[in-house]
């Protein structure tokens, strides 16, 4: 029996148990069943064309339903499903139920989460497709290694779940976590024929073709030890696996009018740490990680973030610096939004105008001045279910910079969400 079939069987088993639990739940045990969900329409208007994309309006539809069942006090099941549609070809046309999130397009129908959680005393065991978030800083989070993202729209990327076994032990102020991921979930890259893949105007005559993407076969693993002290916290983490962001090899095809883009995912070992220390005036947060690789041609580097944060009145304000030190420069070209946002000053702020209205802002400005990203949004609720959000994203800079390459992708948008 192959590894894949074992996991598919396990997923099927969990699904069956979950469905049977949901099916047998009665109103009298309503406290053991919880659900949440929403339907959202999101439209973005791009005033400028790019060399490879003249579509100025993109509309997304997303419906999400999450259900949680606690048949007994020591076990819990969680399941979530997404249904999507898009006006600009971001979503697969087939309606098969996707579990592994490995496609170039977003699946029309996908299992977002499917997991069981067993608890016994200080031990928690999570099995299945789940979200695992490490680290403390915002915008750039170097130690967050089990959190691939959907970068079809680079600056609106949602996190993708990973299929994992996660064991957590908590003893007083110490938390020890071990994670094992049997199969790899990549981050989803921008589509090659659209505006989030920046193509120099001189090369627009060449078609970009998606080449091979051999996914790593080996499992990934990580451990994290966290200490929550009297008012401060710190954690150390180690990861051995693969970068969920690809290295890219571009190969001209024989007819010379097409370029084949081949993705590969370099091996990665990470040793990192994060800490939060409240002081009288603000909370200082820091995170740093060293990345080593055995893959020839891949970079080795250190990412670090220093950030100050303060919540006062209705304001939450934070700012800091994200840095990068390359310790060994490889030859590979990579798609790396995490590194692309480093060597930058970052900031975020939000303000609650009243219980139903808020504004938020975030930005990253490259220290060289070669790139800038800023996003502002104004959001308000109507009644108990509706939320409307107006947003604007500003991108600028020079074409050779990660942020600057998206200089023609500034946009305005509106999203309307009905939560239930």
């Amino acid at each position, binding site marked *: 029996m192959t590894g894949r079939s074992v996991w598919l069987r396990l997923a099927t088993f969990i699904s069956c148990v979950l469905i049977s639990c949901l099916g047998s739940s009665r109103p009298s045990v309503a406290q053991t069943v919880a659900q949440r969900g929403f339907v959202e329409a999101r439209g973005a208007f791009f005033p400028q064309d790019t060399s490879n994309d003249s579509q100025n309006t993109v509309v997304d539809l997303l419906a999400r339903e999450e259900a949680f069942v606690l048949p007994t006090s020591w076990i819990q099941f969680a399941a979530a499903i997404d249904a999507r549609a898009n006006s600009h070809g971001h979503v697969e046309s087939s309606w098969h139920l996707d579990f592994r999130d490995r496609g170039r397009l977003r699946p029309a129908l996908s299992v977002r989460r499917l997991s069981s959680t067993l608890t016994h005393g*200080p031990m928690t065991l999570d099995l299945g497709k789940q979200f695992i978030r490490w680290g403390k800083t915002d915008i750039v989070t170097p130690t967050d290694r089990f959190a691939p993202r959907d970068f079809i729209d680079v600056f609106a990327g949602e996190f993708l779940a990973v299929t994992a076994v996660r064991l957590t032990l908590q003893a007083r102020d110490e938390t020890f976590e071990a994670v094992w991921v049997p199969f790899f979930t990549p981050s989803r890259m921008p589509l090659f024929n659209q505006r989030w893949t920046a193509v120099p105007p001189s090369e627009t005559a060449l078609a970009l073709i998606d080449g091979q993407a051999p996914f790593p076969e080996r499992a990934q693993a990580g451990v994290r030890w966290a200490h*929550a002290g009297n*008012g401060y916290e710190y954690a150390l983490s180690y990861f051995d696996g693969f970068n969920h962001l690809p290295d890219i090899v571009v190969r001209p095809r024989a007819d010379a009018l097409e370029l084949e883009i081949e993705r590969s995912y370099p091996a990665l070992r990470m040793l990192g740490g994060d800490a939060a220390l409240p002081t009288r005036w603000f909370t200082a947060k820091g995170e740093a990680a060293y990345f080593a690789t055995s893959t020839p041609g891949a970079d080795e580097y250190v990412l670090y973030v220093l950030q100050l944060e303060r*919540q006062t009145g209705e304001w939450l304000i934070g700012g800091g610096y994200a840095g990068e030190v390359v310790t060994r420069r490889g030859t590979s070209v990579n798609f790396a939004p995490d590194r692309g946002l480093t060597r930058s000053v970052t900031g975020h702020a939000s303000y*609650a105008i*009243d*219980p139903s209205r808020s504004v938020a802002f975030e930005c990253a400005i490259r220290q060289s001045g070669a790139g800038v990203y800023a996003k502002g949004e104004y959001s308000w*609720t109507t009644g*108990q279910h509706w939320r409307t959000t107006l947003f604007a994203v500003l991108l600028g800079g020079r074409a050779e910079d990660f942020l600057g390459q998206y200089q023609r992708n500034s946009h305005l948008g509106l999203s309307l969400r009905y*939560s239930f």
Partner: protein
Amino acid sequence: MSSRQPPVMPAAARRLSTCVCLLFACSLSRLSSVAVDAADNVRQIVEEAQRRTDATSQRYEGLLQVLDSKGKLADKRWTLERLGAHGDSKMVLRFTAPAEVKGVALLVVNHPDRASDQWMWTPAIERDRRIALQDRSTRFFGTDFSFEDLEERDVDQYDYALAGEEVVDGVMCWRIQSTPKQTKSSQYTRALVWVRKDTYAFTRIENYIKTQAVRRLTYSDFQNVQGIWTARRLEMADLRRGSRTALTLEKLQYNLPMKTEDFTLQALRRP
């Protein structure tokens, strides 16, 4: 050359002076002892109030109605579970409505000798965030309760003085001034607490920053639930903003079996 000599006190005058000093010292000591007694008595009132609300656990479903200064009303709901009582307790609060905040949760670990530890879980980003001490004066999720107001008061965290007696809602109450001890680390300089004489239940707390009253918590709709006199309705008024939040306790139960492991960061992730 003249030297100034201290005036010589006659013996009788010296005796009188000694006597006055002794009397003064004696009265000072008595006054001080009365003050200590009074402080002890006030503390005993608060201790008794605390003793009468002791429970091994508590669970309720709360309906929050937030009324801003312009009269706009927003409803929220949460469930609250608490293990232990007062300074030695843990609490998990989970929002159940409106739909978009379902699953947002707060873990509060109360300590008898210092401010609590608090973490908030936001399911939309699958992350928890520790609420730093200096951020505790912030309003909690658009309500008029601050993060600090969600902590449980413990008798040992304050010094007390009787500030008078007053009838509140037709019931005679002690009016007690409580001042947080240095280890408590509070946004408030002091608070006035009204304690009912008939049941020892808190009926009003008025919190001050320096001399300004900033928040007033009013308790009403008292019911005896499993032997504990409990206010089923609490109203927190933000006196600076002119807004208020009413919290109605539904399905309230005490002394339910609960497990320590349900009050951890891992448990916070579970809905």
